[in-house]
């Protein structure tokens, strides 16, 4: 018998699923982050925490800017090259231009709503360029459903109640997100509770709390993941 009798994410009888090792969100690939609800800063916050240090090209279409606001420098504390564009197609071509440049550490595009411009072909172009350039490329999708895409990792991010502040229990503390990796190349889909460790500037992945699974209907683990 091998050392790992069950693949990642598959529960043996009556036990919790084996948590897969956390992925590398800063890998030089195309990733997509889907927000789950309006006013949730989970997807931009997760992407911001996953970016490597350096100058980042941040392109937004008009609707994302109107509905979710613009990046705010004092809260982000990152060097940004901001692009305020109008159409999702412009965002995609700006990302392609950014991936050809050697001056950037990462490129991020935000698209609101279903975008016909972001077809499978367009996402595949971005994925190939990101891998050729060795830069992480993130697409933040607001108010959109996952459609066929060549993104190597696809996340669904929901806000969770924050970590209690040790000094003031009434105040919101460090943010926490429920990150569901619902599609990834070469690994099963799974769910984590993610925190941003500001001191070490990295993402802490931990298994979601047990009672959450007990509260849900007992489906096969693979079926719930779209």
């Amino acid at each position, binding site marked *: 018998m091998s050392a790992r009798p069950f693949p990642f994410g598959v529960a043996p009888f009556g036990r919790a699923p084996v948590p897969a090792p956390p992925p590398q969100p800063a890998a030089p690939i195309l990733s997509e982050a889907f927000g789950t609800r309006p006013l949730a*800063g989970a997807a931009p916050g997760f992407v911001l*925490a996953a970016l490597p240090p350096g100058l980042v090209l941040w392109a937004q279409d008009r609707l994302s800017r109107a509905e979710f606001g613009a*990046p705010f420098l004092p*809260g982000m504390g990152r*060097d940004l090259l901001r692009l305020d564009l109008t159409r999702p197609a412009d965002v995609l071509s700006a990302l392609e231009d950014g991936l050809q*440049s*050697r001056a950037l550490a990462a490129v991020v595009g935000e698209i609101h709503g279903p975008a016909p411009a972001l077809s499978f072909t367009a996402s595949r172009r971005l994925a190939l360029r990101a891998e050729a350039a060795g830069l992480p490329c993130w697409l933040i999708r607001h108010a959109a459903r996952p459609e066929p895409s060549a993104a190597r990792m696809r996340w669904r991010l929901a806000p969770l*109640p924050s970590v209690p502040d040790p000094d003031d229990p*009434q105040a*919101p503390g460090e943010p926490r997100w429920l990150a569901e990796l619902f599609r990834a190349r070469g690994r099963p889909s799974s769910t984590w509770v993610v925190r941003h460790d500001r001191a070490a500037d990295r993402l802490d992945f931990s298994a979601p709390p047990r009672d959450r699974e007990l509260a849900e209907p007992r489906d096969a683990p693979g079926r719930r993941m779209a």
Partner: protein
Amino acid sequence: MDSRAICPALHIEPAEPERDAARLARLAFWARRWGPYSTPDGDDGIILDTTGAAHLFGGEAAMLAEIQAGFARAGLTARLALAPTRGAAWALARFGPERAICTDPLPALAPLPVAGLRLSGETLLLLRRLGLKTIGDLAAIPRLSLMRRFARAEPQDNPLVRLDQALGRAAEPLDAPEPAPEFAAEARLAEPVMDPSDWLPGLLADLCAQMAAADRGCRRLCLSVFRVDGERRDIRVAMAAPTRDPGHLLRLFDGRLERLDPGYGFDLIRLAAEAVEPLAQAQPGLDGAAPTGLALARLVDRLAARFGAQTISRPLPRESHVPERAEAPGPPLAATPAPPARPDRPIRLLNPPEEIRVLYAIPEGPPAQFVWRRQTLRVARHAGPERIAPEWWHDRPGTRLRDYFRIEDDSGLRLWIYREGLVHDGRGGAPRWFLHGIFA
């Protein structure tokens, strides 16, 4: 109407002096295909400085013939003259022989009438009464008596000044509305074409070689096409840093050439470098790639050429407590590092803030519940208030202070809301609440 009654076939065009002047100015630019400086001259003339340009067209006579043919193709009749001074050319074009070429002004101008000296009607009348009919007559008068006779005349109406200008004794520089480019490359085509893209790489290579020889780079590039119907169309691209890389410059024209209106085609393409700056030779890396600072400038150029320079910015911190003034769009190549993130500031800022409707207001705290776009949010945790006063040196009088709260609702949404004003601050009615930011 009376004229129409007499001659029914009469064709009437209303006079439009302003449109004529504008058309003449455009035509003056178009005429720069034969010389680097040109300017409209009066209501009906164009002055073109062709110094050192005639050999490009096979001599002065051949150049004049080509200029006349060019205007004829555009549907215009032109009377041309080539002379060492502006005044002599003016006189010869209007009163001299067809396509006059003069090397010495005095013998060429002597038989012409004095009207060739650009004088007003009153002065001409006076000269005729004095019996001075030709320029030669006037030039034969002693200077002193002319000076005495016309001592009170304006300079542009003084026969002596005009005569000196025509004969080259007084300078009369050409005040061109747009200086001639320091570096330019041209392609003259035998037949009018509609698309300049095939010629662009060669022109760029030529221009960049010229600039490299002089250790110069340009920050603006102007592609002009000279249409056969007497119009000129320009496309300008701008660069964030001086450059002379033909491959990079060529990509800046991507998608711009389609918007060029070629009319009936054009037969001259000129590429001119503007805003020329010194640019030393840069050592490329061992892998043949450009240095990193240059890579950013090129990315900015490409994005600005495609989406417009106003879309691209680099947020820079500013000393202000008012959130919307705490950052300002800076130039894309700014080298200021960003300050570290503050946990009490949101990562997203809504512009403008969205008003929310508060259901249960607590006098000195955040609302227990509020409605944002018909969606009720229940505040579970909060921190604050953080009071931010208006900046009296910026804001209008009567601007209300803001009390900011960081709140978290029971599902984990972390938001930044504020109350504008206090209840009895004398600056308006009941305070209103706004949603201003989104935390991670």
